[in-house]
């Protein structure tokens, strides 16, 4: 019995100790974000927290690095739009 978290409504299984990013890659996802200016696809690149390519929103907080955050049961992960702070646009 594996644990699950939710990614954009989809149930994602993971093993204890796996990062959010590893779990997403494990179910075949290669990209889950688009760049802010030119809309190019981004997913895991460096895998070690340096490149900030794999950003996701986790439990309401944007700009989380999927490669660093350990997956936890019941997490709500969302695809991030732009800089993730669209609500600050005036």
């Amino acid at each position: 019995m594996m644990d699950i978290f939710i990614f954009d409504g989809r149930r994602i299984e993971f093993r204890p100790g796996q990062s959010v990013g590893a779990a997403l890659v494990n179910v075949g996802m290669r990209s889950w974000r688009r760049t802010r200016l030119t809309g190019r696809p981004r997913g895991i690149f460096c895998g070690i927290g340096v490149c900030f390519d794999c950003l996701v929103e986790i439990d309401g907080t944007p700009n989380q690095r999927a490669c660093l955050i350990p997956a936890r049961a019941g997490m709500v992960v969302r695809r991030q739009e732009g800089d993730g702070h669209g609500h600050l646009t005036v």
Partner: protein
Amino acid sequence: MTRPDVVVIGAGIVGAACAWFATRAGLRVTVVDRGAVAGGTTGAGEGNLLVSDKPPGPELQLAQLSARLWSELAQEIRGFEYEPKGGLVVAATPASLDGLVALAEAQRRAGVDVRAVASDELADYEPWLSRKLLGGAFYPQDAQVQPMLAAARLLRSARMAGAEVRLGVEVGALLRDGDRVTGVRTGTGDIAAAAVVNAAGVWGGEIAGMAGVKVPILPRRGFILVTEPLPPVVRHKVYAAEYVADVASSGAGLQTSPVVEGTPSGPVLIGSSRERVGFDRTLSVPVLRALAAQAIELFPVLAEVVMIRAYHGFRPYCPDHLPVIGADPRAPGLLHAGGHEGAGIGLAAATGLLVAQVLSGGATDMDLSPFRPERFG
């Protein structure tokens, strides 16, 4: 290799501006730097081109000349994120508002464009600004550039016009003929030249020492916090009126005053701190904490924003807080262009033009006597 007319020591913003204006004046220029382009203070700041933080006097005149030159360079050279976005100075206490109003009035008489902003008008300039502020002043002539790009673009333009840029080349000594400076001695050979420009930033005092002259340029450390990319929540350069007094003070201890601005790529930059700790590069968490707390007082919305990194550098300052610009009569052939403290990006354009005018032997657009290198005795 043909013998250059001028060797510029330093590939920061000041050296780059000297190289560009001297090349444009028809001189053959070689730039040397022991490191990379913008590897020192130029790469450790925010890229401010400010008239707002300068009381009337020679530094303000230099800033006004520079502001005009930067807007021309933005057309002529391009590619360095020149943003004529204006500066908003805000006051949180009656005393700081009184000080700001008096400063603004004096600046207005000196030709600065400054508009009083009532407390209920502040939100029109900055929707996310704290509602607790008493008022402010808006300075449309304040602008910003990306300083590393600006140095690189100036140097590239100079090279395309015939200048040579040699990086990783360290000056170990100056070539002398009596008191006269006749070139530089580097790890890869001597370069003879009719003139040498000391644009070595915080290390300018060492270069002066090689000519046996004293130019007291010292490092004043400052940190900058960088947020994650955001929508344009900060539209202008925004800072507290107390910043002006902090810059002008001579204390060695830590001073912080909030300076907040957005960037075209999204992150918000948060300063400012100043302390005299030599070249100590240790990260100071208490300073970062103070910067964050002050920024949140100005822009409460920043409390929900993540900082992704911090950087720091050393402002080259002189005891009287004025730069050193021009020929050194104690060592003919040597010119200095440095000691601009935290205003070096802004003042670089005028400094470059004035140095080129001195090198060409013509009249200068400004009286250089307040900046004379021998003034410290």
